[in-house]
């Protein structure tokens, strides 16, 4: 009894010590990083008012910049379509990998591990990193943007789908296996019907995320709305550049509105 009590006290002491060490470590790392990069918090804060002032005097659309609106909308449309296309095609591939990768539905452990391994590699390379890698093969083109989004989404969605399948359908998969149903029958009668709402929800989430990153990827890949922004900004046409930002923000809000609506209906 006494032994248990003293061990408990030890555990609490140890936990407190751990927390203290962790906090100290964070402070230390922050200090080192700031010193190395010569980032001064005071200077950083001091530059904020100036930045705001600059924004107000330059960064708003004018009547003149509005004439560029059809052009911008065209680019935005391209970006939206590429994001959606990349996501949906990636979702299809991810579904196949997830079915072969999930413990509930894999054909065997070895092949399942390979499927999940491939997806993990793709997931751990960021979309922006993919864009840089793909620049070598495709150069600055919409294809670069498309594949960058595609690969990133594929990795992420495979992981999300595997978890969904394991969580939602492993019990009914077991039941259908016990009735003597064949593999593909089980997939179509149990896995897909039980997972479909979560799958759609993940795809919508991915579309939203991809539209956000498409802007950045476009900067790198030289296509779509990101490139349009880059062009206007570098040619010092700040008014039009600000219009691009507004179009992006409105589009993202609009897409989010739609996907929230779809989610409400299907779930």
């Amino acid at each position, binding site marked *: 009894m006494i032994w248990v009590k003293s061990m408990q006290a030890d555990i609490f002491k140890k936990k407190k010590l751990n927390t203290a060490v962790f906090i100290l470590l964070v402070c230390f790392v922050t200090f080192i990083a700031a010193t190395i990069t010569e980032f001064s918090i005071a200077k950083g804060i001091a530059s904020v008012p100036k930045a705001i002032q600059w924004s107000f005097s330059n960064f708003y659309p004018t009547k003149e910049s509005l004439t560029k609106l059809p052009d911008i909308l065209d680019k935005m449309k391209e970006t939206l379509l590429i994001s959606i296309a990349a996501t949906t095609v990636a979702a299809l591939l991810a579904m196949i990998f997830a079915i072969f990768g999930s413990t509930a539905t894999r054909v065997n452990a070895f092949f399942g591990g390979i499927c999940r391994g491939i997806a993990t590699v793709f997931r751990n390379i960021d979309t922006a990193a993919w864009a840089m890698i793909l620049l070598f093969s495709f150069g600055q083109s919409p294809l670069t943007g498309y594949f960058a989004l595609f690969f990133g989404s594929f990795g992420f969605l495979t992981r999300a789908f595997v978890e969904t399948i394991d969580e939602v359908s492993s019990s*009914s998969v077991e*039941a259908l296996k016990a*009735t003597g*149903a*064949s593999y593909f029958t*089980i997939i*179509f009668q149990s896995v897909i019907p*039980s997972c479909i709402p979560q799958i759609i929800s993940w795809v919508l989430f991915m579309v939203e995320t991809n539209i956000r990153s498409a802007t950045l990827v476009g900067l790198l890949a030289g296509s779509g709305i990101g490139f349009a922004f880059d062009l206007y900004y570098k040619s010092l046409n700040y008014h039009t550049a600000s219009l691009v930002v507004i179009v992006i923000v409105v589009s993202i809000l609009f897409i989010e509105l739609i996907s929230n609506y779809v989610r409400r209906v299907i779930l």
Partner: protein
Amino acid sequence: MTALLEVAHVSKKFGNDTKALSDVNFSVREGEFVSIIGPSGAGKSTLLRCINRMIDASSGEINFDNVNILSLNKRELKKTRTKIGMIFQHYNLVNRLTVIENTLHGRLGFKTTFAGMLGIYTEEEKQQAIKILNVLGLNEQIFKRSDQLSGGQKQRVGIARALIQNPRMLLCDEPIASLDPSSSKVIMDHLKNISVKMGITVLVNLHQVDVALKYSDTIIGINGGQVVYNGSPKNITPDDIHRIYGSEAGKLIFDMGEIHAG
């Protein structure tokens, strides 16, 4: 009086050191109602799943309907599984589908992959599903989504899915462990009916000794992966219960006294 199911020298190891079953032997007659009891972790679920090869036994022999289950190839195994219905503690339904769709899932083992994938059922199968659901008292729920049902109703759908297979035997893994007493009684009464009226053999894992004693023709007691009792519920003694459940069985003996008295 031939045995429908014969389990001989069956052992199951998980990994290198977990021995879930060791040298299990018993046989079950056609139409018999058998309860398998034992503490959790005794190997009840593993035993049930070895019979229809949801889990592959490490060694031994299992004969069902004169077929050696352990020697079947994939196709033959699927065919044999259609003759064995299975019922689960957590019902294992596809929650988003309707009651009748879940019931018809019991027919999927008889279909080609194509018909199965698309869920094409004959008019006869649909009529049979409705008939079975009526018998189980689910006539009002036929077109409801399964996630709108109570636990007891879900389990009855589980039974319907098994019955539409026209099985020779039902394997039930803790069918009433998640249910309240009155739903439990309904489920156990249905299972007993199935065994008595339809002549279907029923194997039930239970952890309620009183229920097992009340409903079964035969009790199989397992502890630590070994059969420690196999016989009629009438002859079971407090000592037997002790052996099945280990040392914590003080209260159980009291319960059993009540049942024998009543």
